[in-house]
């Protein structure tokens, strides 16, 4: 009798886990070290940290290794771990103008204070497979560069600030001092709609990179009004500061690498004093695609309409989280015997009713048996076609 497809106990689960782990170690290659992952696959660990909402490069590398490179699974491991940790303190807010940028481009102005810093990027590289990477020794292509002493790095002027000083861009909402509140933390407070902008930004910052990119793209593709001009995109490090528990003084604990993106949107915020609207994006690590996608979505959500998917905060926030979408999509693999039996009952009932209605009375005059049988067949075929919209399935369990 095998009527429970998966009769199980701990042993079966452990064996499945073991088989999964075996896939990782089945080859002859050396085990990946966390240092290798952190050093050489930084984009991957960045993505995982940003989707997890936890800046921890070594843990991210561990998660990537354990998940065999599945980013959503790795982010999930980090989030589940994070949720068990004690919260000792909260950091002081940091102005991103303090950022020490290794890369900064401004598509809106050719000359910006501080200049364009191309920095490390593949943007203008021809996408050709580099076969020398396949088996060559690692070489540092910058080893022969002659560098001048550049002195202390200086923070860059924020392009958006320049535009705001000129009154061209609407300012973010700045509530009066007595109305200010602590920012919402959506990991500790349930999200309900209408949703405040700080909650939107937090959810977007933790959004799945592919989902943020796709939804942001949808707005550009025509399903929305937002087509921004980027004020600047920056990659760099920001200090993490806390108040020292004994001295009460501000101390810098560490730095986090972030990608920041800001955009002006040619939608005039006010009629009497026309100003550009704006969008903002910030992610942990190097992930320009996600930061820009987030910028488009932030701007779109501020339009606040239900006309377009990207402009509907509920739609975007309901679909953008990798852990939610991954879990629910994959839960379809779970047994659904009960719900399926329930819906089988409905479709059979409806089909029987239709068949009964189509069945000719036995003593009907004229008409051979065969013709009647054909007619029933035809009707049955039609009723199958007609049931395309129904039944309602198992209601998404």
């Amino acid at each position, binding site marked *: 009798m095998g009527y429970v497809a998966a009769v199980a106990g701990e042993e*079966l689960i452990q064996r499945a886990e073991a088989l999964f782990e075996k896939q990782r170690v089945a080859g002859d290659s050396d085990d990946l070290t966390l240092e290798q992952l952190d050093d050489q696959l930084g984009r991957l660990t960045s993505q995982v940290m940003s989707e997890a909402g936890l800046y921890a490069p070594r843990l991210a590398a561990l998660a990537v290794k354990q998940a065999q490179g599945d980013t959503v699974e790795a982010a999930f491991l980090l989030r589940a771990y994070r949720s068990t940790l004690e919260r000792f303190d*909260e950091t002081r807010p940091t102005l991103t103008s303090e950022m020490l940028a290794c890369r900064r481009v401004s598509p809106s102005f050719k000359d910006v204070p501080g200049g364009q810093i191309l920095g490390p990027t593949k943007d203008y590289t021809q996408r050709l497979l580099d076969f020398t990477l396949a088996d060559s020794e690692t070489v540092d292509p910058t080893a022969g560069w002659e560098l001048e002493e550049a002195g202390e790095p200086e923070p860059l002027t924020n392009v958006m600030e320049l535009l705001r000083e000129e009154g061209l861009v609407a300012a973010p909402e700045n509530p009066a001092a007595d109305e200010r509140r602590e920012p919402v933390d959506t990991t500790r407070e349930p999200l309900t709609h209408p949703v405040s902008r700080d909650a939107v930004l937090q959810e977007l910052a933790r959004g799945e990179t592919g989902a943020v990119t796709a939804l942001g793209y949808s707005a550009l593709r025509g399903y929305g009004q937002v087509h921004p001009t980027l004020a600047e995109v920056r990659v760099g490090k920001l200090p993490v500061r806390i108040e020292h528990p004994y001295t009460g003084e501000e101390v810098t604990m560490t730095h986090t690498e972030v990608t920041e993106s800001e955009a002006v949107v040619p939608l005039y915020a006010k009629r009497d004093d026309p100003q550009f609207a704006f969008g903002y994006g910030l992610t942990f690590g190097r992930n320009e695609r996600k930061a820009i996608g987030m910028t488009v979505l932030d701007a779109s959500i501020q339009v606040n309409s239900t006309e377009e998917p990207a402009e509907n905060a509920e739609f975007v926030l309901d679909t953008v989280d990798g852990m939610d979408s991954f879990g629910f999509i994959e839960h379809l693999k779970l047994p659904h015997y009960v719900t399926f039996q*329930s819906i089988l009952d409905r479709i059979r009932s*409806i089909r029987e009713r239709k068949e009964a209605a189509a069945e000719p009375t036995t003593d009907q005059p004229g008409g051979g048996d065969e013709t009647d049988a054909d007619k029933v067949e035809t009707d049955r075929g039609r009723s199958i076609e007609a049931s395309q919209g129904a039944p309602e399935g198992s209601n998404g369990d």
Partner: protein
Amino acid sequence: MTEHEQTGLADDASAETATEGGTNDNRQPDRGTPIRAETVDAALDALHGEGMAGYSYAYLDEHTKREVRRATLKAIAIPGHQVPYASRPMPLARGWGTGGIQVSLSVLGPDDTFKVIDQGTDGSVNAANIRRLAEETANVSTTTDTTEADVIQTRHRIPEEVLCDDQLLVLQVPVTDPLRKVDPSDAANRKRHAHRNYGKMWVHLYENVVEWGEINIGASYPTMVAGRYLMSPSPIPRWDTPKLDDADHLSIFAAGREARIYAVPPNTRVKPLAFEDRQFTVERFPDRACHLCGSEDTFLVELSETRDGSDGRFETCYVCNDTSFCEKRHSDPDRPKDHHLDREGVDWGPGTPDVPRTTADDAASERGESG
């Protein structure tokens, strides 16, 4: 671990009243659970208690458990109303019972016995996985016997055996709002609930009848709770829905991904939506009996299998979906569903008589036997 860790629902009720007077209490940053200890080493030692090393008792930290219990209490106080809570990431994937396990772990204590069923069976992999998480972190004993369990976490079934007033049923919920099928927006639906405005749902059911001659909803049949809130009973089959009406036990519905908890307290009126001329009906199993135990009064599922002498041909047969009760019936075919109670004849199971037999039903059973 400590007394503090084992607070139950009752303790939390008083805790809530105590803090209610405080202003902006919930805006305070979450500073975690204080540990009283003389030295740092003692504090670190105190972190290690029963359960999984490095984790709190019952996995969740005490703040989370308290929050879940508060949401649960609120849900009990407003039957059928969906209470938001900050669902935590769990070590299980969302959509796989993370809401249920948060409620279960928040109410379980070391003296409790825990049962987990997934689509009617204790044996499924996912049920086993949830069970071992509770076993490992909360030190509970587990059972497959419905009558022995204090807390039963279930995915989409209410057991065949009658539940008692000292039992807690935790139902996993995928889609919290029955109105979702008529409007995807939770913001709009929250307003509808506030105004008890269920017109759109009634129209939906009416259109069902017009198009199909009957209401074609399978599982998660929309029900009114205490005459006030429209509620999804989670995707339990219609067969189980009447068991919620005037039940002795407490049912808690928990969604992890959607971060909502709602409840049906004992002895609460639960009424499926239906029309006077289109009654609520449960799944029909005309002339069917369980292939294993012979029961005719249980929810059956069909399966195809090859039998001896069938030349490898698949045949359809029916078996009880509640595997634990099926085993009992196997050794004692006449065991009633309320065998463990003092009283007899408890109305538990299909709430409506089977729809009157029609010729179509006969045709269907003939077809079933030949196919």
